[in-house]
């Protein structure tokens, strides 16, 4: 029983990271109808920035905040420079753009910081949380930061005018423009926020997976699985999907014979495919009905 509780809690902790990545992916998907394959690399690069700042002697939380600001601006810049011109281009052009972005960021990080694995600090420590062996303080910290982030985002989108405008721009762009919303900047703002959310995920998971240019590859696939499971049209679904995937991954690794650590990633892919076959819109997604 203790093993089970332990695995569930650890699953919720990594699930929090998947939830952040899924949320970042869904925010951009809502804005421009494309999956950002480079979301993980963007998060990795941000994490390197924070690491570099700490190497220069900046404290953890100061580096955390500076990185958030950097990521926000970088996300907006990427949208303005690369994806705004592609807004009316065919899907494959956009896909090529994302793959290019992926490769550019990955190689740049390798060039600047090389491909060796680096230790990344945790501000929470790794002692048992509240003296219990079930979960470490870092895992508790991951869950805590994610919950705060989600509450903040919920408040922002539900109760602020700019949040309302962003939702409107994503749901009916033409009507949004007709009430005076600059939808183009709302998309850029979405990119900025998604990139900042991704950077939080990167900084929280780095102590677990260690810092290196390919650290987010697996995490992003779980993030995609979470987004597909919850429904790409539902930010709430993406978050729930993240936690479910985290728990599912751990339980499958522990209890299904032969899965272990090695086959955890294929589990995520199997999950994506099963969801797409059984419920294409995801658990919370809306089926898109088109008049013909």
């Amino acid at each position, binding site marked *: 029983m203790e093993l089970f509780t332990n695995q569930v809690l650890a699953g919720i902790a990594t699930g929090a990271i998947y939830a952040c990545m899924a949320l970042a992916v869904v925010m951009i998907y809502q804005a421009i109808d494309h999956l950002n394959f480079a979301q993980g690399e963007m998060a990795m690069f941000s994490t390197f920035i924070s690491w570099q700042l700490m190497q220069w002697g900046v404290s953890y939380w100061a580096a955390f905040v500076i990185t958030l600001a950097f990521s926000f601006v970088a996300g907006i810049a990427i949208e303005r420079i690369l994806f705004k011109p592609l807004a009316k281009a065919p899907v494959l052009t956009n896909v090529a753009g994302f793959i290019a972005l992926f490769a550019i960021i990955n190689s740049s990080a390798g060039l600047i910081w090389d491909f060796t694995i680096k230790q990344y600090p945790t501000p929470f420590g790794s002692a048992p949380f509240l003296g219990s062996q079930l979960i470490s303080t870092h895992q508790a910290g991951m869950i805590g930061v994610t919950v705060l982030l989600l509450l903040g985002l919920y408040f922002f989108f539900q109760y602020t005018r700019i949040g309302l405008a962003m939702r409107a721009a994503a749901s009916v762009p033409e009507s949004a423009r007709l*009430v005076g919303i600059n939808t183009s900047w709302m998309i850029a703002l979405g990119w900025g926020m998604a990139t900042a959310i991704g950077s939080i995920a990167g900084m929280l998971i780095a102590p677990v997976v260690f810092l290196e240019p390919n650290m987010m590859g697996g995490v992003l696939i779980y993030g995609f699985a979470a987004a597909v499971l919850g429904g790409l049209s539902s930010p709430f679904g993406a978050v729930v999907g993240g936690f479910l995937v985290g728990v599912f991954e751990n339980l499958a690794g522990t209890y299904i014979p032969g899965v272990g650590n090695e086959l955890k990633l294929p589990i995520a892919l199997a999950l994506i495919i099963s969801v797409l076959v059984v419920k294409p819109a995801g658990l919370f997604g809306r089926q898109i009905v088109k008049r013909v």
Partner: protein
Amino acid sequence: MTTLLNVKDLRAYYGQVQALHGLSFSLNEGSLTTLLGANGAGKTTTLRAICNMVRSTGGIEFDGKPLNNKSTESIVRFGIAHVPQGRGTFTTMTVEENLQLGAITRKDSAGIVSDIERMYAHFPVLKQRHTQQAGTLSGGEQQMLAVARALMLRPRLMLLDEPSFGLAPLVVRDLFGILGKINREDKVSILVVEQNAQLALELADQAYVIETGRIVMSGNAKDIANNEEIRKSYLGY
């Protein structure tokens, strides 16, 4: 009477296809003007061209200021509210959020709150449903919501694209009654595009008839309604 909207030699294009062929008309401050015409005559395109939602050339002046080359979202800030064909409801949001979105360019939060109450007084059904998702409203209720959303801008000019579309005749009467009241009491000038010519002419003071992207007839709404020849050849009733 001062001219509020002046459109001169308007030409509009969808890709290579020209939809408007040098269309000119004007609208006086405080008037309720209607654009009539058959399917595909260019009524919707005219409204879309005013808000720069379709590529066009020619002169569009609002209150003496040119609107050409202004983005759709900045034209709203002149005080022009456009209720598009199909109503443009934010279906996944609540009725109240739809109203707030109508006022998203305004800064006076106290005025917005009181205007929402004013809309509920105009349209009591919206108050009953204010927490409901707008997509769950009936067609008539959604049209009321669209008009209310446009009024939340406190517009000087409201553009309405076929408000009667898909509504039961009784609901249409209701809606047109409200439009007349808004025009008279709130001093909002209205340009309404309609296929239901009979009803639109009853309501409007000025009327223009469009055929294949050109104005073919203009004048006092009553005169046009009383002219049997025009009615038979252009308006089909």
